[in-house]
C-alpha cells in the first residue's frame, strides 16, 4: 500500500525537480551561448572596422603592424586612425551598454536610460566646460565628467522624488535641454569654432582620440566592470521593485551602489568619446530581447560595443566622401526605435 502510494509521489517529485533544474539550466545555457555569439560579433565587427574600409589591411600585415613592424603608410593608418577608433568604440560601447542597462533595470523603465535623462549630456557639459573654459586635460576631464553626471543624476532624482516612470523621464529631458544649452554656450566662448569639438561634445565621436585617453578609459573600465559584475548579483531582485527587493534582502544601498557604478561608467565613456546618442538606450532592450526577456548586463555591454563599431564604420564609409561621427549615426537610427517603443505602448504600463 505504502509502496504503491510512494512510488508515483517519488517519481513525480523527481520529475518536478528535473523540470525545475532544466528550467533553471535552460536560460543560463542560453545566456552563455548568447554571450559567446555576441563576443564573436564584437570580434567580427572589430576586424571589419580595422581591416576593411577605404584602406584594406590583410591579417598578416595587421599582426606585423601591431607587433611593431613599420610598413610605410599602413602602420600610420592602422596605429593612428583605425585601431584607436575601433578600440575606443569597443570600450565606450561596453561602458554605455552596461551603464544604460543598469539605469533601465534599476529604474524599471526602458526610457530611463542615461542618454535620455540627461546624465550623458551632464557629463559632456562638465567635460567641455573643463576643457574649453578651464584648460583641463587628461584624467581631470574624466573627473569633471563624473561630477557632471552625478550632479544631473542627483538632480533628476530630487525632482522626480519617488515617482519613477514618466515623471523621472520628463525631469531628465528638461535637464538634458539645460545641459545642451550649457554646451552650446561653451561653444560660443571658444575663440576658434572647431567643428570636431562641437561634434564630439554634442553628438559623440570616436574620431581623433589619442592612445593615452584610450588607456585611461581601459584602466578605469578594468576596475568598474568587475565591480559592476559583483554588485549586479542583486539585479534580479531589484527588478521586482524596491519593496520586494528589500524583502529578499537586497537593501536600497546595494541598488544605489549599482546605480552609482552606472553613472560612473557613462561618465568615463562620455569623457573619452562624448555623449554617443542612444547607445545606452538601445543596448539594454536589444540584449534583453536576444536573451529571451531576461536582463543581461554583459550582453548589453557587448551589444553596445557592436552598435558603436558598426555605426562608426557606417558613418565613416557608407556615404562617399562624408565622415559622419558615430553619434550622428546612432542618433539618426536610435530615435526611430525610441518612437517605435513609444508607439508600441510598452512604456505606459510602467508609467505609474
Amino acid at each position, binding site marked *: 500500500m505504502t509502496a504503491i502510494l510512494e512510488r508515483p509521489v517519488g517519481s513525480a517529485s523527481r520529475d518536478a525537480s528535473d523540470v525545475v533544474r532544466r528550467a533553471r539550466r535552460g536560460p543560463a545555457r542560453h545566456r552563455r551561448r548568447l554571450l559567446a555569439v555576441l563576443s564573436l560579433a564584437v570580434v567580427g565587427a572589430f576586424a571589419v572596422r580595422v581591416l576593411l574600409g577605404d584602406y584594406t589591411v590583410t591579417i598578416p600585415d595587421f599582426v606585423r603592424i601591431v607587433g611593431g613592424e613599420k610598413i610605410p603608410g599602413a602602420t600610420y593608418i592602422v596605429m593612428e586612425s583605425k585601431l584607436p577608433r575601433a578600440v575606443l568604440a569597443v570600450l565606450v560601447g561596453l561602458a554605455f551598454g552596461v551603464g544604460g542597462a543598469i539605469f533601465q533595470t534599476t529604474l524599471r523603465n526602458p*526610457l530611463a536610460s542615461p542618454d*535620455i535623462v540627461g546624465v550623458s549630456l551632464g557629463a559632456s557639459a562638465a567635460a567641455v566646460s573643463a576643457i574649453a573654459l578651464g584648460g583641463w586635460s587628461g584624467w581631470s576631464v574624466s573627473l569633471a565628467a563624473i561630477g557632471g553626471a552625478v550632479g544631473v543624476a542627483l538632480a533628476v532624482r530630487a*525632482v*522626480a*522624488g519617488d*515617482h519613477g516612470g*514618466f*515623471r523621472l*523621464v*520628463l*525631469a531628465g*529631458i*528638461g*535637464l*538634458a*535641454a*539645460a545641459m*545642451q*544649452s550649457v554646451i*552650446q*554656450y561653451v*561653444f*560660443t*566662448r571658444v575663440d576658434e*569654432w572647431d*567643428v570636431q569639438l562641437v*561634434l564630439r561634445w*554634442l*553628438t559623440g565621436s570616436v574620431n581623433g582620440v589619442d592612445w593615452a585617453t584610450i588607456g585611461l578609459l581601459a584602466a578605469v573600465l578594468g576596475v568598474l566592470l568587475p565591480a559592476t559584475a559583483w554588485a549586479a548579483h542583486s539585479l534580479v531582485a531589484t527588478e521586482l521593485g524596491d519593496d520586494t527587493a528589500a524583502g529578499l534582502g537586497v537593501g536600497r544601498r546595494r541598488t544605489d551602489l549599482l546605480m552609482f557604478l552606472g553613472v560612473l561608467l557613462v561618465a568615463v565613456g562620455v569623457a573619452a568619446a562624448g555623449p554617443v*546618442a*542612444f547607445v545606452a538606450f538601445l543596448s539594454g532592450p536589444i540584449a534583453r530581447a536576444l536573451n529571451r526577456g531576461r536582463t543581461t548586463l554583459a550582453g548589453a555591454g557587448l551589444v553596445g560595443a557592436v552598435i558603436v563599431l558598426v555605426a562608426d564604420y557606417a558613418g565613416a564609409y557608407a*556615404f562617399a566622401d*562624408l*565622415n*559622419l*561621427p558615430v*553619434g*550622428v*549615426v*546612432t*542618433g*539618426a537610427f*536610435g*530615435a*526611430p526605435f*525610441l*518612437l517605435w517603443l*513609444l*508607439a*508600441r*505602448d510598452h*512604456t*505606459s504600463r510602467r*508609467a505609474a
Partner: protein
Amino acid sequence: MTALVPTREDVTGPHGGGPARRPALPASAAIAVAVLAGAGVLSLLVGANAVPLDALWDEGHPARAIVEARFERTLLGLAVGAALGLAGALMQGLTRNPLADPGILGVNAGATFAMVIGMTMFGLDALGQFLPLAFVGAAAAAVLVHAIASVGRDGATPMKLAITGAALSAGLASWTTGLLLADRKTMESFRFWQVGTIGGRGLDVLAVGLPFLVVGALLALAGARLLNTLALGEDLARGLGRRTTRDRLVIALAIVLLAGTATALAGPIAFVGLVVPHVVRALVGPDHTRVLPFSMLAGAALVVVADTVGRIVLPPSEVQVGIMAAAVGVPVFIALIRRTGRAM
C-alpha cells in the same frame, strides 16, 4: 489634470467667480503694454556698450549707429517672441496639455530639419524660399508626434507627448547634423541660428516673415472663441454647433504658421511658448480671448528681455536668446512636472 488650461471659468464664463480678484482688463492691458515698451527701450540702450537715453531721439548722436543696429534686432525679437508666445498658448489650449510648446513637442525641430534639407540638398538660400519648407516640416512633426503619442490605452497624455516630442527632436537633430556636415558652408552660417538668436539679421528678413506671422496671428485671434468652446470637450462643443474638426484645423494652421516662421527667423527657440501662457493665465484667467493677446505681448517682452540680459550677463561673449530661454524655461518645466506629475 488639475493644471489643465480650461477650468471652471470656461464653463461659467468670465464672470464666474475667479476673475473678480484679478485686475480689470484695461489695467492689465496697460501694464502689459508698459512692460513691453520698457523692454523695448532697455533693449535699445543696454548691451556691451551702454547707450545714453538721448541717443534715442538725437539723430546726430555718436551712439546712433548702435541704437539703429539694436532697433532691428529688437523688432525681430518682438515679432519672434509674440509668435512663440501665441503658438504656445494655442498649443496648450488645443491639446489641453500644460506641457505643450513648439520646442518641446518637436515642431521647431521639424521646421529646422526641413529647412536644412532645402539649404543643403536644393541649394536654397533665401528666407522666402525655405519658409514653405519650414511650414511643411513643422506640420509634419506636429502630426507625427501626436499620432505616435495617441497610440495606446491612455491616449496622448501630456507626458507621453512631451517624451515623444523630445525623441523626435533628438532624432531630427542627428539627421540635421548629418546633413550639415556634408555642407560646411551652411554649417558655419548655422552656428548661431541653430542655438536660437535674433542678433545679426536685417529688417529684410523680418519683412519676408512678417506677412505669415500676421496671418497666423489673425487666425489665432479668430480662434480664441473656438478654443474656449473646445475646452468644454469635443462632445459639448459639437452640441453647441461647432464644427470641431474645422476649428482644430484653423488653430493648427495658425500654430504651424507662427512656429514655422519664428523658427525660420530666429532658430529653434524652446520654452518661450511653454512659460508665457502659464504666466498669462495666472494673471488674466483662462479665457482664451484674453490669454491669446496677452501671450503675444508677454512672449514679445520675454524674448526681448532675454536677449537684452543675454548681452550683458556673461561678458565678453553674448548668450544667445535660445540659451537664455532655456535658462528661464527649464525650472518652469520642472515645476510643472512636479505639480502635474501625480495627475498623469
